[in-house]
């Protein structure tokens, strides 16, 4: 490492590596230099002139956001000329900026407001009338109020560099300059809302949150996004038990401030008018509202009766419920009902990967690895659509570290913009494409392999064997669909594997087998919608469904128990890379109960002894009983991600690759749940299909 440069900032001696910008060096020394256009991680703009500092021996004030540190430099950030310059800059910014803080959404958390409060003049010397332009709506998500815009270009950069979309640009000149969307008067983009959150002022506002409340009126609850498997932390703003906004401005979590449209805006399923708020029971052929006591009693009676006569149960778990719920469900099935007929929608061959790696725990990548590793190979997945955070991390890795990215996909993907090599293959022929990259891949110092659901069974083993033959360190990510798809496998929602990939005696029925069994007595579905894909052969089966909405499966049910959503419960979920994170209840829907509580009450009603079913005690059981989940409590409790490593040997079962099928969600779809987000469905008209030509 090169020698550190020593400089003085406000009389404080500071050391920084050469090439560091003065603004960053100051920040690291705990000295804040205000800036609007400068944003860590994106290209330099030097447009706002807020970060001017005084540097000894330099005749004029310098923009510290573009000035690299130099040996012996003496910098002053709060001297009189600097403060005067800031005051003037602010006065200029306010020439056309309206003084409508009382109605502006950003009021209370606006960077311009803060700066004017700190440095600004109380009065303006301008008497001219402010230039006004009407507000524009660019999409169901994004609104733009040009007069409030201070032309910092942050939105443009986050969209083109961060998201790789490039939907925003600038038009006109001087005071008439404005940000403009890609398609004339509207946006066709990811609708991620990153531009809205990064805007230092209230020029960009969101269709969900605008003019609803004020930042200090909300309760801010950090939890994990319930849509895809990437496990972004989203901080929900809650007022009166209603979620009004989602963002992650404090950059906590594995995603920093990244969120896609689902994490930022699709929380609105939580108070969808069709949410179930009372248990339903089929009486006289029709689903009718009944009390919890009556519904639980009916279910418990039926379960006990079928168990007593050794009848056939079929249990379908969820890829969105918590680890605690999944663990308790399989315990209920195996110990309580004495059956191994338990399964879930499988969307990636984690089992074979775990087996093929045979205990190499250091071969499992984290989200951070997508940003750090020197080379990455994407096989059979449209990352920008299906795994937005991983795509964002790879893009940032390329921007900051020049990562070399290879893609082997069916159609064009966004990673093509910067990948060193792209191979198009037929589905099922991906490995031939991978093989063709061998000469280049073997030159890499290390490699991260991300593979989708088309690589399964023997193909996973072949992929691992191929990577082994490269003789370089390789890490893997087996892509799965939903927020706890990975946790569902780890917790043993499988007919042949218990928690932590422990094989069970007498494997039970798989999901399609349950659906096809004409003699099935009970089908118990917890937070899944199997009837969207399969039909139920057993006409007389007693169907119990724990759901938020009257899905296809719930419509067929004999008893429907209204479940709380992921934003209404506590627990943990495990993301695609095996990182376990904590859910914190943000809101409440009257009448619903978390699935864990429903199952606990059922166990009590049936007088089963399945142990205490509070979140804490079940999590403790997971920590002690599930291989690889002995994760440090403080890490999880403080809202950070704890890496699990649920393997340390071979798994002697066949993973049934035929059952692995991804839902292939795009940015704007998310299985059954996505249908109940008005925001998500409102943008369906915009491009969002996989492998867009």
């Amino acid at each position, binding site marked *: 490492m090169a020698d550190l440069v020593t400089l003085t900032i406000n009389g404080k001696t500071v050391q920084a590596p050469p090439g560091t910008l003065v603004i960053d060096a100051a920040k690291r020394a705990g000295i804040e230099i205000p800036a609007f256009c400068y944003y860590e991680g994106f290209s330099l703009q030097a447009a706002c002139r807020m970060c001017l500092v005084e540097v000894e021996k330099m005749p004029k004030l310098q923009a510290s956001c573009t000035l690299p540190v130099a040996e012996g430099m003496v910098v002053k950030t709060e001297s009189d000329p600097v403060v005067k310059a800031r005051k003037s800059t602010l006065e200029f910014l306010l020439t056309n900026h309206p003084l409508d803080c*009382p109605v502006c959404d950003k009021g209370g958390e606006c960077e311009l407001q803060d700066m004017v409060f700190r440095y600004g003049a109380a009065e303006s010397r301008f008497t001219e009338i402010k230039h006004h332009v009407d507000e524009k709506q660019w999409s169901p998500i994004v609104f733009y109020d040009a007069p409030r815009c201070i032309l910092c270009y942050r939105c443009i950069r986050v969209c083109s560099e961060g998201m790789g979309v490039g939907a925003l640009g600038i038009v006109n000149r001087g005071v008439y300059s404005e940000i403009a969307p890609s398609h004339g008067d509207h946006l066709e983009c990811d609708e991620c809302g990153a531009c809205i959150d990064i805007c230092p002022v209230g020029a960009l506002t969101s269709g969900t949150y605008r*003019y609803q409340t*004020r930042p200090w009126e909300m309760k801010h609850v950090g939890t994990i996004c319930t849509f895809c498997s990437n496990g972004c932390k989203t901080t929900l703003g809650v007022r009166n038990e209603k979620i009004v906004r989602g963002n992650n401005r404090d950059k906590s979590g594995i995603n920093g401030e990244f969120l896609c449209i689902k994490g930022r805006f699709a929380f609105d399923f939580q108070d969808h008018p069709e949410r179930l708020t009372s248990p339903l029971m089929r009486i006289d052929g029709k689903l009718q509202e009944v009390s919890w006591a009556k519904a639980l009693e009916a279910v418990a009676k039926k379960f006990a009766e079928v168990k007593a006569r050794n009848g056939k149960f079929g249990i379908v778990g969820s890829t969105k419920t918590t680890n605690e719920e999944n663990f308790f469900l399989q315990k209920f099935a195996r110990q309580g009902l004495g059956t191994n007929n338990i399964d879930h929608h499988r969307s990636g061959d984690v089992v074979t990967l775990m087996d093929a790696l045979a205990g190499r725990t250091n071969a499992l990548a984290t989200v951070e690895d997508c940003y750090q590793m020197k080379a990455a190979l994407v096989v059979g997945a449209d990352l920008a659509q299906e795994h937005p955070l991983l795509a964002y991390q790879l893009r940032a890795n390329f921007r900051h570290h020049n990562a070399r990215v290879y893609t082997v996909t069916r159609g064009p993907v966004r990673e093509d913009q910067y990948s060193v090599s792209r191979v198009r293959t037929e589905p099922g022929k991906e490995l031939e494409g991978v093989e063709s990259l061998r000469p280049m891949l073997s030159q890499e110092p290390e490699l991260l392999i991300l593979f989708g659901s088309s690589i399964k069974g023997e193909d996973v083993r072949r992929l691992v064997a191929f990577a082994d033959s490269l003789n370089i360190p390789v890490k893997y990510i087996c892509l799965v669909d939903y927020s706890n798809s990975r946790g569902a496998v780890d917790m043993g929602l499988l007919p042949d594997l218990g928690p932590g990939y422990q094989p069970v005696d007498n494997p039970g029925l798989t999901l399609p087998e349950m659906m096809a069994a004409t003699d099935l007595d009970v089908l118990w579905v917890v937070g899944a919608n199997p009837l969207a894909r399969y039909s139920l052969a057993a006409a007389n089966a007693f169907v119990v469904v724990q759901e938020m909405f009257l899905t296809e499966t719930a419509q067929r049910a004999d008893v429907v128990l209204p479940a709380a959503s992921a934003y209404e419960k506590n627990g943990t979920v495990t993301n695609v890379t095996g990182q376990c994170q904590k859910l914190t209840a943000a809101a409440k829907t009257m009448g619903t109960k978390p699935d864990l509580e429903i199952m606990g009450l059922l166990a009590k009603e049936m007088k089963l002894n399945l142990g205490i079913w509070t979140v804490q005690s079940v999590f403790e059981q997971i920590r002690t009983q599930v291989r690889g989940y002995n994760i440090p409590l403080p890490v999880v409790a403080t809202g950070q991600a704890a890496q699990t490593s649920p393997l340390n040997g071979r798994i002697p079962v066949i993973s049934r690759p035929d059952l692995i099928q991804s839902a292939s969600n795009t940015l704007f779809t998310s299985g059954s749940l996505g249908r109940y987000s008005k925001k998500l469905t409102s943008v369906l008209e915009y491009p969002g299909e996989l492998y867009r030509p």
Partner: protein
Amino acid sequence: MASKIQEILGSAAAIAKGMSITFKEMLQPTITEDYPDGPAIFQERFRGAHVLQRDENGLEKCVACFLCAAACPVECIYIEAKENTEQQRISGGERYAEVYNIDYSRCIFCGYCVEACPTDAITHGHGFELASYNTSTLIIRKEQMLAPLEPGKKPSVVLDPAATALAADHH
């Protein structure tokens, strides 16, 4: 003996002095108020029940900025904001207070809300007959606080007849 005479004279003088004040006051104008038989009279800056003001067009001045609620030391102001639309304009700004409640069982009439308001919407009126046997009636809603429309001004809310009927049902 002498002391007895002195005592009588002293008492007489005291009575005369007292009565002189009484007779003098009888000739002065009355300052007693007749409330509740007559109207109560206030200093102009008396801080009584709040009034939400309207602008010169009859629109509500309140833009639901929540600053009054933030300033209120007892947190008795509750607001729900909503956006004005082309069809239904209620305030002059982008948004208006769809709900604006003050809980008079907590308000201490400090006037901080009035100080904080950037649009001079919330003001203290002179209303003071606020006593009630039921605390739930002490939560005063926006509709009860809004200044009446000047004659000839259109109301800002064009109520949908169905909604009005529904509201009437509830009373």
